[in-house]
Structure formats: C-alpha cells, structure tokens
C-alpha cells in the first residue's frame, strides 16, 4: 500500500489512543483530587503534565499551575499538540486524506468524534465543573473506533499498521503513567504504604482500567505487584508487555507480505524487548532502578517507531 496511506492509518490510531489515555489520566486525577482536597493544585495536577512531557510548553503558556489551566491545556488547548482536542483533530485530518482507503463507518465515526470534541471545546466553561461525561465519551470514542476497525476493515496491511500504532502508543502511555507515580509522586519513606500512597496507587490502576483486573488477580494492593501487573502481565491488554508483544505480532503480519525483510531493525528491537520482558521480574527491575528502567522502555519504543518510519513510511527515492 501507499506509504502515505499506511502512515496515516498508523497515526490515526496513535492519536486516538493518545487522546483516550489522556482522557483516562485526567478523569482519574479529577476524581482523585476530590479525595485529596488538602493537596495543592501544583502537586495534584502538575504530575499529569509531566506524564505527557509537556511541562515547558505549559509554563510558557500559562505560568503557574492551576487545576483549570492544566485541564484546559491537556484537554482543549490547540497549542498543545498532545491535547485531546489536537489529537482527535490530527486523527481526523489524517482520515480525511485517506477516506477512500477506510470504511465509511470509520470515517463517519472519526468525523463525529471530532465534532463532539470541537463542540465541547467551544463551550468548555460549561463542562469544567463536571467533565466526567465528556472524558468518558472520549474513551468510548476511541474504543468504538477500535471496534469499527476490527469489524469493517479487512485485516490486511492497513489494519495491521493501525493496530501497530495503537499498541505502541498504549505501551508508551502505560509506562509513562507508572513513571509519574514512581518518580514524581514518590512519597517520603514514612508514607510508603500509607493510605495516601495506596489511594494514589489505586488511581494509577484506575487510569488504565486495571483496578478490577488487578484486584481479581492479586487481591491486595502491593506496589511491586502493581508494577508487575502494569509492566509484565501477559494477559492484561494495557500492560507494557502485552502491548509490545501484540505490536510484534502486528509487525510480523506486515512483514509476512514483504519479501527479504526478515531481519528488520524494528522487528529486532521489538523481539529483544519482548523476550526481556517475558523473562524478567520486578526484583530485577527494581535493582536496575524503576525510573531508569521505564526510561529505557520508552527509548526502545521510540526507536521502534523511528525504525518503522524509516522502513515503511519514508521510502527513499
């Protein structure tokens, strides 16, 4: 298929998955803020901006952190290319240029999704006091797209590129979220295991819809088990391993139709990462250093993205 088309499908899915993750983070944080009213906005909300690695941009535009500004920045601000609004808009622009390659249902959904976000952005003051429904609609918008793609598009190259984008984006976001809890929300030693600490850990789980699944598997809230669940779990669809392993399957399917492409740098990197995640455990991760480990994960995921770009999208003359 055309490189431009593959690139667009890949990014439609990355953007929409990103919008979904942001909506999750914001929603859970807003909920958490109600339980931790004594914590100042800066401490409650700034870590969220850290999750998205856009602190400098935020400070340039808004200066001091406030709940309202951060909410706006992450949700509706066009100047923030990672905001929910910007992501959904970018996904739609990508979809517009490849309409003949996607199903009518897929286009109609993305278009409607965009209009919902845009209309809400135009009356953001109204939803600010209670953004829950809106954020939920963003998460559902993303989930619905995934379902529409699965059931209306042939599972050939384009679909695989879409899923590849989804899984890489999701792996990155789950890793980032964990990093924020560990690195930025790191409580002083005497607070480890405190109620506040556990509330925050539950929030991390809830951000990725993992709370119930975690409870079912481990019962007790234990930080190192939560880390294990979110990074190494083999079955939970938002764990880093699950996502990178699925990305590898997608890449394998893409390469299957290509000749002479068995040893491809993207595949090599993904396969090495996955075998590592398969055999490692939390003890080793902790020994390496949690923050350092996640940093490394993210670097590898970025490299995989770059290799995919080189190999498939930026075809040399």
């Amino acid at each position, binding site marked *: *298929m*055309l*490189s*431009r088309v*593959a690139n667009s499908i890949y990014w439609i899915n990355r953007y929409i998955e990103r919008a979904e993750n942001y909506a999750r983070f914001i929603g859970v944080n807003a909920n958490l803020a109600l339980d931790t009213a004594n914590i100042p906005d800066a401490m409650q909300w700034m870590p969220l901006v850290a999750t998205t690695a856009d602190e400098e941009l935020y400070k340039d535009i808004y200066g001091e952190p406030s709940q309202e500004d951060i909410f706006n920045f992450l949700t509706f601000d066009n100047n923030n290319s990672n905001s929910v609004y910007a992501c959904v*808009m970018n996904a739609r622009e990508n979809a*517009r*240029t490849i*309409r*003949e390659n996607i199903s*009518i249902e897929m*286009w109609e959904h993305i278009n409607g999704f965009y209009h919902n976000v845009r209309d809400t952005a135009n009356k953001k003051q109204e939803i600010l006091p209670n953004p829950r429904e809106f954020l939920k609609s963003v998460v559902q918008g993303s989930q619905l797209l995934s379902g529409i793609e699965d059931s209306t598009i042939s599972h050939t*190259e384009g679909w695989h*590129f879409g899923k590849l984008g989804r899984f890489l984006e999701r792996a990155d976001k789950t890793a980032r979220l964990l990093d924020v809890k560990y690195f930025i929300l790191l409580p002083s030693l005497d607070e480890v295991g405190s109620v506040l600490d556990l509330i925050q850990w539950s929030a991390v789980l809830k951000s990725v819809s993992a709370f119930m699944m975690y409870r079912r598997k481990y019962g007790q809230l234990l930080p190192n088990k939560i880390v294990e669940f979110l990074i190494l779990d083999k079955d939970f669809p938002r764990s880093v391993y699950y996502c990178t392993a699925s990305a590898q399957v997608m890449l394998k399917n*893409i390469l299957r*139709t*290509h*000749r002479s492409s068995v040893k491809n740098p993207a595949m090599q990197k993904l396969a090495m990462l996955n075998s590592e995640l398969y055999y490692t455990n939390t003890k080793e991760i902790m020994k390496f250093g949690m923050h350092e480990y996640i940093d490394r994960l993210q670097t590898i995921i970025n490299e995989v993205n770059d290799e995919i770009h080189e190999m*498939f*999208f930026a*075809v040399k*003359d």
Partner: protein
Amino acid sequence: MTLDSYNTEGFFDEMFTSDHQLKTGYVPFVNYIKHLTIEDLAHKQVAAEHSLMALGITFNVYSAEGGTERIMPLDIIPRIIEGREWDRLSDGLTQRIKALNLFIHDVYNQQQVFKDDVVPKSLIESSKCFLKPCIGLEPPKSIWCHITGTDLIRDQHGVMRVLEDNLRCPSGVSYMLENREILKRTFPKILDETQVRPINGYTISLREMLEHIADKPSPNIVVLTPGIYNSAYFEHAYLALQMGVELVQNSDLVVKNGYVNMRTTKGLKRVDVIYRRIDDTFLDPLTFNPDSLLGVPGIFEVYKRGRVALANAPGTGVADDKVIYAYVPKLIKYYLGEEAIIPNVDTYLCENELDRQYALDNIADLVVKEANEAGGYGMLIGPKASKQEHDDFRKKILANPRNYIAQPTIQLSRVPSLATDKIEGRHVDLRPYILYGKEIVITPGGLTRVALRKGSLVVNSSQGGGSKDTWVLY
C-alpha cells in the same frame, strides 16, 4: 398535485410543448406525482439531500474554521431526453471528439491544418494553452482527449448546441453517478416505468480506457489529485475507489530510473497510467511552471519516452481555447469531411475587426467570454450587467482582442423544478461525459446543471447552481 398551472413563460421547456402538451417521456413521472402533494415532494427533496451528504459526495468550501463540506443541491425532478434525440447527440459528440483529437495531434505534429489555411497559425501560437514542449509528441494510441465533458445547451428554438468543449480534466461526473443513485431511492417505480438507460457503466469504461492506453496487461493505474484542499477532492477519491485504483498525491510519486514510481510500504512501485486531475502546467515543475508544488519533477520526460500514459494528454487545452471553439465546425469538415451534427453557438471573434465592432456596439445584448477561462469566470452577461461593466469590458476587449469572444445571450431551455412551495421552470444545460479509449464511449445522460435562482442563466455551482438527474430513454 398537477402541473396544470405550470407556465412555460415562453421559454423552450423540456417537459411541455409550447401548447402545454406533456412530452411523452414525462408521462409516468407526471402520473406518479399526481398522487403527491407539494409537501410530499419537498419531503423527498430533503431526504435526497440527506442521502447526498451521507454518501459523502461533497465539495469543499474552505474557511479559517477548518472547512465545511457542502453538497451540490440536487433538484429531484429529472431532466428527460428521448432516445432518438440522444442517439443523434451521441453521434454528434463522437464526431466532434474525433475531429478535436485529430486537430490536437495535427497542431503538435504536422500542422497541416495551418498549411491548408483552415485555422490561422497565429491563433495557436498566441493561445495560453498551446504547450511548446508537446511539439512532436505521440501519445499512446494517438489519443489526446481521453475524458471530455462537453457543455451542451438548448436554445429558445429547441436546438441543442455545443457551448464549450472542456477537454481539460472536466469535473462533475461523480454528481452524475450519485444523482442517479439518489433518484433510484426517490422514484424507484417511475425509473422502472420510464425505461431509462443505465449510467453505472461509467467507471468500468473509465478503467477500460485507462487500461487501453497502458498497452500492457494489468497496468498499475492511479488517480493523481492535488489533495484534500481541492474542491473536487471527493470526486477524485470516489473515482479511485470505484475503479479500485490508488489515489495519489504528488508526494507519493517520484521519477526514478526513467520511470514514474509510487512510494509504497514495500518500496517503489512502477506506475503505468495516471488519470491526473491537476492542470497541464502544474504537472512537472521541470518542464512547465517551475513554482508548481503539485507536480512531479521529471514526469514529462518519462511521458515523452512513452513510459507512462497520462489522461488527458498534456496540451489538449489548446482545443479548449474559446477562439478555436469557433473553428470546430470547420475542423469537423476538414478532418472528417462531414457537416457538424451539433451546431455551435454563433461566436464573434474579437480579433476580427468586423466581429469586434459588432461586439463593441452590441455588448448589452451579448455574452463576452475570455478565451481561456472556465467555470463562469472572466465573463460578462451583457443583459444582466451595468453600463459601467459594459464599458469595462469594451476596454478589456480593445486592450487584448485575441483574448475575447462574444456570443448572443441564449435563453437556455427550462425544466420544471422544485421551488419552495411550487414547481417552476428553471434554466438548464447538459454536460455529457465522453471517454475516448479503444472506442468512444458516451454515458447516456450526463450532468444536467440547473440555475436554481429564478430567472438566472448561470448554472455554475459556485453561483447558485444545482443539478438534476438526466434520464435518457431507450
């Protein structure tokens, strides 16, 4: 409802004779709507417009707010053409396209037509659309104008005439195809009873034509679009989809090792045929307009070597020049030895002294057009213009007579159309689509454009025009 009170107001009407007799083709339609109220029809009209939006056949109107998509309004009352009349039109169009194709080939090769004094050579050399780089070119199968959308009008005496030839990427065929799909939903029973010829073979014929000029089995065909900001983008996407070929932008194409290639996830892939929807001079910045950001550098050289086919061939616009238009009946005689079956509209060439004087003296009654403009731009409709505008155009003509022609103002024929709460006559034209491949294929029908504003003669969609489905009978 009945059409008893419908008034043709002295215009030639496509549904009624001058003594208010219903023409036979319309009998099933009029019998059917007898059982409907005007509200029923209005309701069907709204439903049709919703379907158009849902089908996504829209054109872009861009603004700062990110753009909106509009539909070209569709009036659900069809325009009907009798089979016998159509067959004659079809013969006339075939004849015209054959002659024009021979003419274009001649202009860029032997130039016999000048040596025989049929057309003055100076006219061609002063035409903006004459492309020097095309001299000596032999396109695949000697076909230049693969896709044509000739504009026809019917005058107040009922005579069908050619108004423009449109040999350069004519648009609108997607509306023709979708209008029929909508009317199939709106009036299924009447379509059946009226015995209408089908039009949905168009995209099959289009693909066959493109395969024909490739001259190799299973060629790689693409549609080249300027991109999503082009007003006809959806038509480009639609045609690519219907033909099952890739829709590409210039950035998808690259010239490498003497061939045109497209960038795919599996590397470069050779392209054999390009149905290009960008203008000649934007095609290749190395040969034509160096500022073009829409083109593919080096593509013209590949084309010249016969390693890629382009539809339409670059250079066809020379026969679109409105001054050349005036010579077409002569060209038909010259190349085919036949009389033109479909007449032209009388045309005064401002370059000729007598014609110019006539145009200047009678400008208030004439339509004045620029030789190379299309889409209703650069045009003066004398009877509707102010004195100031008349004077402005007189000055323009005197400054550059070669660039202007004048024609009598034609009262286009009318078709009953749905006005808000009644049915009234509205002026129409007709754009049939002609494909020139192994043979000449003309889809029975075409796009009937209708001036929805009462009294207006301008059918362009940018100026209040809409369209109708066109039913050609067996």
